[in-house]
């Protein structure tokens, strides 16, 4: 802490005061894979904002709920209970927002935070992480994003159900307003303080429509569940185009992604690896393609291109290759250079803003040689400066030191500190 604090202090004195909190995260025994990802995400501004918004909305929900409870002590006990369970339930997103919120609201600019609750929750929720071993940071990121998205989806659904129930039972409007408020909480916060009355109206309309359609409630649920803010930020769409070499039929399949896992090669650039990712691939031999037209397995050409670019592009470099002979993962320390600014070459023609420009905001670095050994740190950008987060420690670093994170051009005994997950944020025009 002392080290980290001092550099930032001096930075402050140098006359570049910025309203940012730099808090190291305590390592609870090989939890640096969590810490590094959390820091990287924390400094991914849109994500942080959403999480904080969630936290605020959450507390408002509770406040509203209390009000409701006080005002109507004798109405609808069972409904209250469901809401209570919804609100009181501790989950990963909850803990995450709590953690972020605590950092944001710190009086000091620097320090250490113990993500105790979050780690505990994580270990409780997922057995894979419930140990003291080093885990794959990418796996954790994946888990975190998916879980949060699921939680949000679940909440929306639940609230929808409540609202529906409320509507169907023709409950009194007060409860509805509370319920809808909590549902729309995030959106309300966004615009500052919208009066509860307007939001009630909106919700009423929405629900009215869905009820009017009859089964419309379900459609509303599905559409809203697709667009949680996690999806909004991280989800992109890949198009998997396959051309059967026998019948020349082209088929394309879309799939969504939260992050892209790309193969790495020695002495390449990130954009080259991305390009390779989308290059034409032959499906032959054992991995023949089952062609619907031919009704048989055929050789085919396949390529994956990006149809929808996400707001936050998370790129995972596949630095761990499973070596069958050794029955273990071997780390590829290849030097893969990554620019601060990125555009993708592998978008489809119909991709909106296919030449969207991305800025590097943070990245997770893996140090050491093995998948289950070594250490994770993260490097983040804040107000034009770069900071290195190593568990509790925070340091300002110079861009000239980034050479170390690209990788090694030859295998030496040198400690390898290689970039592992990179977060690029789309630049608003």
């Amino acid at each position: 802490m002392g080290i980290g604090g001092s550099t930032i202090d001096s930075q402050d004195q140098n006359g570049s005061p910025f309203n940012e909190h730099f808090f190291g995260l305590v390592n609870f025994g090989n939890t640096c894979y969590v810490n590094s990802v959390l820091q990287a995400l924390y400094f991914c501004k849109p994500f942080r904002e959403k999480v904080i918004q969630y936290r605020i909305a959450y507390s408002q929900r509770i406040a509203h709920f209390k009000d409701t409870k006080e005002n109507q002590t004798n109405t609808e006990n069972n409904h209250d209970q469901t809401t209570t369970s919804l609100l009181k339930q501790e989950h990963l997103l909850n803990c995450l927002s709590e953690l972020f919120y605590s950092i944001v609201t710190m009086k000091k600019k620097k320090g250490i935070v113990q993500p105790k609750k979050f780690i505990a929750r994580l270990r409780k929720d997922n057995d894979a992480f419930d140990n003291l071993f080093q885990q794959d940071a990418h796996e954790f990121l994946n888990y975190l994003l998916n879980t949060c998205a699921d939680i949000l989806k679940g909440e929306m659904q639940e609230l929808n159900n409540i609202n529906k129930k409320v509507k169907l039972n023709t409950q009194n409007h007060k409860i509805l307003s509370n319920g809808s408020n909590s549902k729309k909480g995030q959106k309300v916060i966004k615009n500052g303080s919208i009066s509860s009355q307007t939001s009630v109206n909106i919700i009423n309309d929405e629900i009215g429509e869905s009820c009017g359609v009859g089964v419309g409630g379900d459609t509303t649920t599905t559409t809203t569940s697709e667009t949680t803010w996690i999806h909004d930020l991280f989800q992109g769409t890949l198009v998997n185009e396959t051309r059967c070499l026998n019948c020349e039929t082209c088929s394309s399949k879309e799939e969504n992604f939260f992050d892209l896992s790309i193969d790495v090669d020695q002495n390449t650039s990130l954009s080259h690896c991305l390009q390779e990712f989308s290059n034409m691939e032959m499906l032959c031999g054992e991995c023949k393609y089952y062609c619907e037209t031919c009704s048989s397995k055929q050789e085919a050409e396949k390529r994956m291109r990006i149809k929808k670019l996400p707001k936050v592009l998370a790129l995972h470099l596949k630095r761990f290759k499973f070596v069958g002979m050794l029955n273990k993962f071997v780390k590829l320390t290849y030097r893969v250079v990554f620019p601060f600014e990125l555009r993708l070459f592998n978008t489809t023609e119909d991709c909106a803003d296919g030449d969207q420009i991305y800025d590097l905001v943070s990245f997770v670095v893996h140090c050491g040689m093995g998948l289950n050994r070594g250490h994770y740190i993260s490097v983040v950008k804040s107000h034009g400066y770069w900071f290195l987060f190593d568990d509790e420690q925070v340091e300002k670093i110079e861009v000239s030191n980034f050479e170390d994170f690209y990788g090694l051009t030859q295998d030496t005994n040198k400690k390898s500190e290689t970039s592992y997950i990179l977060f690029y944020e789309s630049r608003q025009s």
Partner: protein
Amino acid sequence: MTTSLAALAASSTAHTTSNSLMSTNLSTTNNQKANSSPGVDINDLTSDIKTEFYTREGLWKLIPSLEYVKQTQNSSNPVSPNSNYNNNTSQNTSSQTNQNLNINSNSDPVKISLFNFTKSQVFRDFYINTRENVKNLCHECLKSQRREKKRLNKLNESESNDEDNNDVIFKSQMYNDSSDEDDDNNWSDSDDYSQRLCRLCKVNLIRNDFIDSSDSESDDESKKNNTKSSSSLSLMIFNYAREIYTYESTPVSSKAELKNIIDKKTYKTVMSTCFDINTTATLSNTLSLQLTRAQNANLSNSDFDRINFSTSPSQLSLIVAAGFNKGEIHVFDVFKKDASVFYNNLKLVDKTSVTCIKWLPNTMNLFLVSYSSGNIYLYDVNYQAQSSVAPTFSKIYQNDSFSVYTNNSSSTQSNTTSSNSSTPNTTQNSNSQTELLNNSSSNSLSSHTKKLILSNSNQQQQQTQNPKNPLLKLNIGPDPNYSYCINQFEFSPCGKYLAIVSQDGYLRVFSFFYKNNQEMQFQLKCSMKSYFGGLLCVTWSSDGKFLATGGEDDMITVFNFIDMKVACRGRGHASWINSVSFDPWAKLSNFNFNLKEEIMENDESDDESDLEDYHLKKQELEKNLEKLELEKKTKITAPKKRTISTLSDFNPAHSFTQNNSIFYRLASVGQDNQICFWDLTEDVLKEKPNRSRITSFIQQSQYQHHHHHHVSVQPSVNLSQSDTVSLKETKEKTSLVSTAKNLFASKEKSDNDDSSISTPKSGTLTGSFFRRHKRNPSINSTSSQVTSTEAKTKSSKSTPIVLNSYKKSTNLFTNLTPIENVSTPILSSNTPLDNSMNSSNSRKSQNVATTSSAFNLCPKLDEVPLIEPLICKRIANERLTSIVFKKDCFLVASQDGFVNTWARPGRNLSKKNKFVNETSSTCL
């Protein structure tokens, strides 16, 4: 082998593409056993490093015997910046064994530089650079001499004696060391001036013959008399980590084992990052040394041509400035141990790493140095090197693309003399102050002489001014407080322009002129943005018409400096590009351009523009009859040619029309260990892809201005004073700055757009107007009367529609206006065509033209041609950092300290390869 393949196969997952096996997987070397995964060498695929490759010229071959290698690291006597360096001139044992260096080779790129001492060049470059026309000088040698004398007399009437004048002239030319004063005196007793001048001119002519006939049977006597080895000496310098090496570079054909190491400098604590040879100072110092030697040897006049170059320090001088990763600068003479100065030793000026260092063209004493902090400083070796106080800079100018600061640290007059004595080219003594201040960068013989004489007579004239190093600080970019690393900068062949590439992805070309603190010019001419990421390297074509950059988008970008637009991009590298270089000896052979095809593709007609074509053609034809014939031909075959192609057919610069084709060879090396060759041919450079028509159109019209109406072609038509730092007097300074401020303020008010960075134009307000009202229908309507075919282009792209129509209109009155009017947009309203439009609109449209470069700062991928490399080969085990072309070979340096020589195809060198462009030395 099998295991590694298995590993790869197992690892290739659903998302993986398997064709990556080909080259990139294997790059690391075999010294991999120390890996933590014993038994498995993932990288142990056979390293397919190429040792030869074909282009259509033939086979390019690696010459292993000419491999320059970094020395072993156990340097016995490293030098710290403060002490004298240690010359290690022992014969080199090129050991490749010691590869495990303690140095992080990641961060210090190897750069190469070549220097050729040929007898003629020593004379030629010194004079040709200073002379408009060498042949005139020679043919009318006596005349010119008389003219010089007259001028001198006029300029300095106090100097009455002609003989004395001559001596002064000679001294000034030679910049003799102060220690050689005795020799100077000898000179004054010897042959008379005119004879010497004649002789020098003769050498100049001989040199020209060299160029023309490519060393083939030269009949000049000096050539006969001299063996090749002695008449020229080729040196190569490269840096690696803590060392700077100077080698004698043997020609490829000689088959000699190379490696006569001349000098090796080792630094104790710092890494060298870059260096540059001062050609002017080197040549003049060497010239003076040679002349002195000849004098001392009592050579007769006829023997005077026989100049031998050996590597003996007494005969040569090689002035080098080197930059280091902690910010220091070392200026030294390779051949003189005592001439060595360090700058920024105390890191008071800048603590960051030096990224690039370059001597100002045609100056003895000035160099620019860039830092990763984003600042560029101007140093003068004649001023005090060190100061114990950090310099304080005061801003004298700022706009949204750069800012200029002067060093206003309190100056101490007394120590100039002492500092001068320690400078490597100790040419001036204390009274050289004045001379220096007046020493223009153009450095023509006459003006130079004049200045020196002035300095002799009026020693006390400007003693009060005593600037300190660094003289200037330049900050490139919109915000001085947050600037980006400057990765490289390069002066144009003509020396007038300075191209800077930086980490923000911008290429910025400035016109740069520095005389002294009161007379300087720094003006943004144009800029370009990479597709994404920083730009890492830049180079000029030898004719100064094109720039090539490479960067973090893995692409080379060729920028047309005349049209001020991106000419094409090239994709082929798998990683960042570290160095690009034009091959000045590449020539077009057996390459047939099929213009007709291209024309037939675009057979839409435009009557009005055909009319303009006619006008253009007329002008052009008067100049060039050859062109006329070509034009006729194309007329016959494709009468319905579209405007754009007509124009572009017409626009090739003069040198191009001689060959009737445009051709450039570009080579790039990158961090993927690969070298790529790119052929820039006419059909690429006169690009015609769907969307880019529009933009090319306007810039073509811009180009017309320059081509026809300016003697010294200025790439930008109307440049306001607001962007020019041109300060003669302090009064003017303040007034100019204030006007600049006003303009700047108004600009700020009007537009804060990023793209305004590159609008070095008078009417910034109108420039921004354009940007805001791109889609303003009213503009469209006014211009619609001018053009008829605009609707066609609308389908192609939405944004530049208006731009398109405006370009049309601009083009129209550009062609019809009298020459005088073209360069000033306001005057263009006088043209008949313009009367049909209201005047404000016309002005706007002119500004469309001028802002077009801003608009097209970073064209989209499909808006410019995308070319593929001619060849793309892995030729090294490590990242390649530098490529330099020689007449008979090219040299590439890699990060691990190897400098390899690759022979050109058909190596009986020089016979087949001539200079493509005679005009290579002419400026734009």
